[in-house]
């Protein structure tokens, strides 16, 4: 590829995508569906970190919270308020699911920023499952809660009658594009940021450029911390918006 060709000329070696390789945790060989891989390891680390924060951190059940407990309460309060503000009171029934999603994504993104870490949310397989789960459950929920009224989501009654069929087509397409954009937005952001950092880091091999490169990596890292949180927030708030559409299909 281009980077390899470039590498042959200058002695630099760029492997920005190597960090995303899925490898078996023990030995080498084929990756079966059950094989414990680096994905498995980092999924478990993410789960362990979340449990450490939300379960072990709140062990004291203190009226005046410890630091860890107040972080857990902050995460809880933020997500709770988001669900309440966007979907309304009747969306609070699905709060645990949305909280799970948010905590999972934010912890994957943040832990993925550690050196040598594997970012599970940079894989379209992972984000695709998350987005499809949201899409399927929200669609099923919409039909269960509203019956055929749910189709009113695609029939824009506020538009002139002539435009409505065209709008309906657009609405249906946009509805089905949701899981795609939902998943690719997250995975793309994660992958791009990590790859760019790797490329910048690769330039550090040249002594003249290395200060600039390190500066760029540092700046990029700061940006990525921001992106890691924002993408988790965006994913969650979009989930809330879709849930709101399912609960109240009227425009």
């Amino acid at each position: 590829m281009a980077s390899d060709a470039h590498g042959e000329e200058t002695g630099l070696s760029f492997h920005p995508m190597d960090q995303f390789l899925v490898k078996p945790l023990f030995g080498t060989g084929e990756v079966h569906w059950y094989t414990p891989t680096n994905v498995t390891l980092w999924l478990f680390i993410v789960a362990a970190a979340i449990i450490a924060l939300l379960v072990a951190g709140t062990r004291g059940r203190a009226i005046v919270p410890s630091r860890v407990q107040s972080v857990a309460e902050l995460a809880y309060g933020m997500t709770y308020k988001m669900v309440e503000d966007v979907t309304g009171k009747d969306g609070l029934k699905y709060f645990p699911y949305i909280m799970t999603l948010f905590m999972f994504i934010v912890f994957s993104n943040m832990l993925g920023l550690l050196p040598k870490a594997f970012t599970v949310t940079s894989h379209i397989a992972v984000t695709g499952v998350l987005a499809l789960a949201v899409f399927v459950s929200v669609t099923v929920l919409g039909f269960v809660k509203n019956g055929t009224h749910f189709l009113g989501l695609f029939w824009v009654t506020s538009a002139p009658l002539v435009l409505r069929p065209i709008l309906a087509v657009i609405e249906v397409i946009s509805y089905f594009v949701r899981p795609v954009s939902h998943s690719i937005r997250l995975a793309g952001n994660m992958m791009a940021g990590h790859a760019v950092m790797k490329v910048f880091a690769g330039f550090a091999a040249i002594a003249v450029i290395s200060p600039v490169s390190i500066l760029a990596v540092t700046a990029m890292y700061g940006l990525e911390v921001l992106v890691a949180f924002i993408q988790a927030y965006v994913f969650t708030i979009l989930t809330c918006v879709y849930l709101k559409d399912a609960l109240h299909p009227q425009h």
Partner: protein
Amino acid sequence: MISLLETAAATAAEHTEEAATAAGHGAEQSSGMPQLDFSTFPNQIFWLIVTLAVLYWVLSRIALPRIAAVLSDRQGAITGDLMAAEEFKQKAKEAEAAYDKALADARTEAHKIVEANRAEIQKELDAAIAHADSEIAARTAESEKRIREIRESAATDAREVARDVTAELVRSFGGNVDQGAVDSAVENRLKGALQ
């Protein structure tokens, strides 16, 4: 539909096998996107679902109810404390009102006592003044009476002395003392003097 899916799955499986072997060959100089290596998808999806299930179970059963309980406890404690504070404030206000009332009562009471004392003292004073006045009047009257008596006695005494002196004078001149004549002569002379 199902058969279609099966054929699709079969072709996908073939593809993934090819991709897996390709990945095995080119692992060192891998250049494609590992994200599109479909052979790893079942693995990722399986472990993701396991992780999410565990997380969902832990969060919905343990973590979230616990945090909710802590938050509502805190809210309850805060509301309780605020209400207690409100109650104490009310009590303090009542106490202040009671204090003010007691103060005003005491002030009126003191005023009343002062008024009563003053009236009593005034009465006593009036009585004392009246007593003194009457005493003074009595004494004055007595003095006047005595002065009159003294004056009267002085007048009779002077007449007696004048008679005796006149009778003695007449006798020493060798005259014959006629008591009646002497008396009338003295009376005549005294008429002018003892006025």
